[in-house]
């Protein structure tokens, strides 16, 4: 088991390297860099000035070398201008050239500087991820149990009235995008249109302190969308298990219906949805953009949009590293959990 996880982690690191390299190449394409030069230097720079700026800021090194520097595996670049001032990747106003470390990259904990938000990338990601984390936590807490209960209840008696009504609900909830359900929820529960002013239509205040009032609507909006999907998967898996021969064995052994569902069917039925649930986590991380914008909740998705629309290369890279790691880690957890749920798969 330990060896299995170790192997998976090694593969995971390799995958992460490949994926981040692709993102690195894409964000560091020449037009992006030129745009960066103009925003950082002067909008009216000539082409020669742009070239010099790029040269002076280390953007003319070969792509692989720059990727290495960004990772922190290769020493950061240094340049000396005509006046003898030394500039470099690791040199800044706070860190003069004589004390600057040789390498500074992701591995050293230096994620770079966000040109838009004017702060350390690591600090921005830290706070924003924390905010989204809180949102995700409440979403999962609401979505997963509800979806599983709905799926199991619908799947245990296929074709029954309960099944049909729950299936309708879950299809409807999956078919409604967040920007529709969010708007409807705001209109119904937060505006004077209906008059039920139960909750707040914005979650800005939730960044400082969560209350039932300011956080319910964003959580419910995301949960509704994801819930239908998981519920459908669970239902499909449950109906299949309920027709299995071992369920008939259990029934003809005299096991009562609730016990058949809980003791015999549930564990087998959860194997397939488990992977789906784990896949929902990275989806939540990136897919919450709409909801975060709608409710003005400045989380990770909001940051990603800011970085992408403002050509903030280092912030964008930082976001993608986080996204890649989250995807890979959740998949590892889902594989390990799968082994745990399904005794037919045993590792040495």
């Amino acid at each position, binding site marked *: 088991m330990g060896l299995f996880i170790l192997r998976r982690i090694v593969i995971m690191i390799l995958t992460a390297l490949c994926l981040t390299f692709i993102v690195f190449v894409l964000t560091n394409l020449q037009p992006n860099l030129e745009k960066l030069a103009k925003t950082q230097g002067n909008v009216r720079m000539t082409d020669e000035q742009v070239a010099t700026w790029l040269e002076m800021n280390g953007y003319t090194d070969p792509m692989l070398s720059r990727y290495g520097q960004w990772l922190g595996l290769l020493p950061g670049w240094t340049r000396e201008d005509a006046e003898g001032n030394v500039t470099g990747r690791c040199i800044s106003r706070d860190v003069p050239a004589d004390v600057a470390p040789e390498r500074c990259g992701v591995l050293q904990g230096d994620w770079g500087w966000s040109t838009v938000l004017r702060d350390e990338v690591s600090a921005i990601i830290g706070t924003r991820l924390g905010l989204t984390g809180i949102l995700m936590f409440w979403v999962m807490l609401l979505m997963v149990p509800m979806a599983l209960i709905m799926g199991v209840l619908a799947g245990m008696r296929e074709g029954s009235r309960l099944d049909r009504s729950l299936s309708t609900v879950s299809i409807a909830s999956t078919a409604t995008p967040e920007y529709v359900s969010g708007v409807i929820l705001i209109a119904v529960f937060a505006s004077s249109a209906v008059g039920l002013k139960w909750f707040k239509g914005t979650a800005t205040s939730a960044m400082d302190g969560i209350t039932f009032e300011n956080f319910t609507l964003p959580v419910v909006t995301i949960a509704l969308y994801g819930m239908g999907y998981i519920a459908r998967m669970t239902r499909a898996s449950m109906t299949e298990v309920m027709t299995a021969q*071992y369920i008939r*064995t259990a*029934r003809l052994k*005299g096991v009562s219906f609730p016990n058949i569902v809980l003791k015999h069917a549930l564990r*087998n039925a959860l194997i397939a949805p488990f992977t789906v649930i784990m896949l929902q986590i990275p989806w939540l991380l990136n897919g919450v953009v709409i909801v975060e914008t709608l409710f003005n909740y400045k989380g990770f998705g909001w940051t990603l949009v800011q970085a992408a629309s403002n050509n903030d290369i280092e912030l964008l890279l930082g976001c993608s590293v986080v996204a890649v790691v989250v995807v890979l880690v959740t998949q590892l957890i889902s594989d390990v959990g799968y082994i745990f749920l399904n*005794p037919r798969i045993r*590792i040495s």
Partner: protein
Amino acid sequence: MTKWDYDGPILEIDKLSISFFTRLREIPAVMDFSVTVQPGEAMGLVGESGCGKSTVALGVMQDLGVNGRIVGGSIKFKGRDLGEMSAEELRHIRGSEIAMIYQEPMASLNPAMKIGKQLMEVPMIHEGISAKDAWDRALEVVTDVRLPDPKRMLNSYPHQLSGGQQQRIVIAMALMSKPSLLILDEPTTALDVTVEAAVVELVKELGKKYGTSMLFISHNLGLILETCDRLCVMYSGEAVERGSIEDVFDEMQHPYTQALFRSIPLPGADKNARPLVAIPGNFPLPHERPPGCNFGPRCDYFEAGRCDAGDIQMFPVPGNDRHATRCLKFQEIDWNAPMARAVSAEAAEIGRTVLKVDKLKKYYEVAANALFSGHRKVVKANEELSFEAREGETLAIVGESGCGKSTFAKVLMGLETATGGTITLDNSSIEQIPIEKRDTGTVSSVQMVFQNPFDTLNPSMTVGRQIIRALEIFRFGNSEAERRARMLELLDLVKLPRAFAERMPRQLSGGQKQRVGIARAFAGGARIVVADEPVSALDVSVQAAVTDLLMEIQREEKTTLLFISHDLSIVRYLSDRVLVMYLGHVVEMGTTDQVFSPPYHPYTEALLSAVPIADTSVAKKHIVLDGDIPSAMNPPPGCPFQTRCRWKSEVPGNLCETEVPPIRDLGDGHQVKCHLADDLLARMEPVITLAAE
């Protein structure tokens, strides 16, 4: 609720009718079915698939699903009508009073639950005993079903056990609460013959020990003979004959029962002199049953205007004990009349050698662990296979699952390449040429008939198109018209109406599909046809027809037939020579007579003894093999059969455990791979003896 005492019959089914309701119509599955099971009695229920025997079992369990309903009659268990019980009462009866054993043990055990827990559940529900007591009970019952290392068994998951062990667990589960009635639905169909024999013996013994009544459902008459006291033959939803084993087997009073017995290969049947008589026609679909007698259209004694006039009742047969038949003419038919001589044919001439296999070896390398390569294990699927097959000859390859017979077929067909040795087809060796690299001539001359006709035809292509496709691949004919003509000829050859060319596979019955499979195999004028269990998925009455067809085509085309099977009755019936395999080794080879009479290889002896024979006049020596077939991943040292051999003690020293026996020739090409001394082999008694007539 406690178990109640009742003196009368355990189970009384009276005029039971069960129907399934679809959107279109009501489909009657069981009609006017009556049977009584006395305490301690074993009742057999025989019939072909679709005759309603499993529906009866589920009816007794009151578990017919959403669409099924009992539409008439009653099922009384110990005097109480099951149909009138509440769901709660039924739940108490299921598992504690009536228990069931199923066809596929793997599917009927919960894969995600430990075996111990699944067993303990039964008494914990019904008797409310503590987990500790239930565990002790489980341990006791698992010991009773003779599983090795019971404690480890209880702590394992179902997939960690072999098929035979799983079936023993299912039996143990059924016996946990000492039920009064045990329903066995084809309990051994998924198992190998030697394992089947052991399971059957176990069931019989436990039935006696616990005094349980049994309802034994099977399509295998031989198995019913070995296990039951009485039987009921079913045809198309009705009981057609009912009585004690002796009465029904020896003095059958219904044409269907008679036809059934004539279509199974009993010792004495011979493919040339005394061929099997197949039942003509097809099983009627449930909504297309004929008026009057259901068997009428296929019956030799059918009398228009009488047999199809109206519903027919069960008539008691005078003179016999509780023997009844659903035939109007049973007193007029001369049951002892010898069967009309089916056309006996000249034995095909056996010609020159076509195929020569010499020291063929096939090893597989498998990673010992599914996830990590590195440590590799070698599975020796075929060890030193040597034989010759001649033109027009039927060579049977016999053995249980995992013996390497299918691997050999794959190597011969070119789906795998050999590890060592040679296969010579007409002076060229083909063992290293995979099928993609074989020339059309070789491909079309070595063809295969597959086991499962349901999966081997493309469901979205007409029958004719599929045969023409084969002809195209074999580069037969120059034009579409020519190939079409040949396709129609092939349909004639396999005795299918030419109109079938336009049909889709789903419109065909199993037997008809297998005929299409045969037509496809013979499309390119195959000279060697490998038939891998060609009839084992078919019903008894269809088996005979397909077997005879295969024989007839072989006779005409002078094809060499390699008949792979585990069914020794059919092998004895149709093969000229037999090759017995065990764990990749050929343990015995010779003509059919040589193999089926002593001296035997100990494995052949056990195999012969394990095959149930549906004939009361046959006396069989009882040999039950212990344990399972060892895994090919980890074969025993020395003789492959030494772990289960009952003669092992007769061989001096530890020869069996250390050395693989040499192949010995006992004269006339009869080869045996055994250490036993000549005098011991000579003293072996025949396993099957026909009682003097």
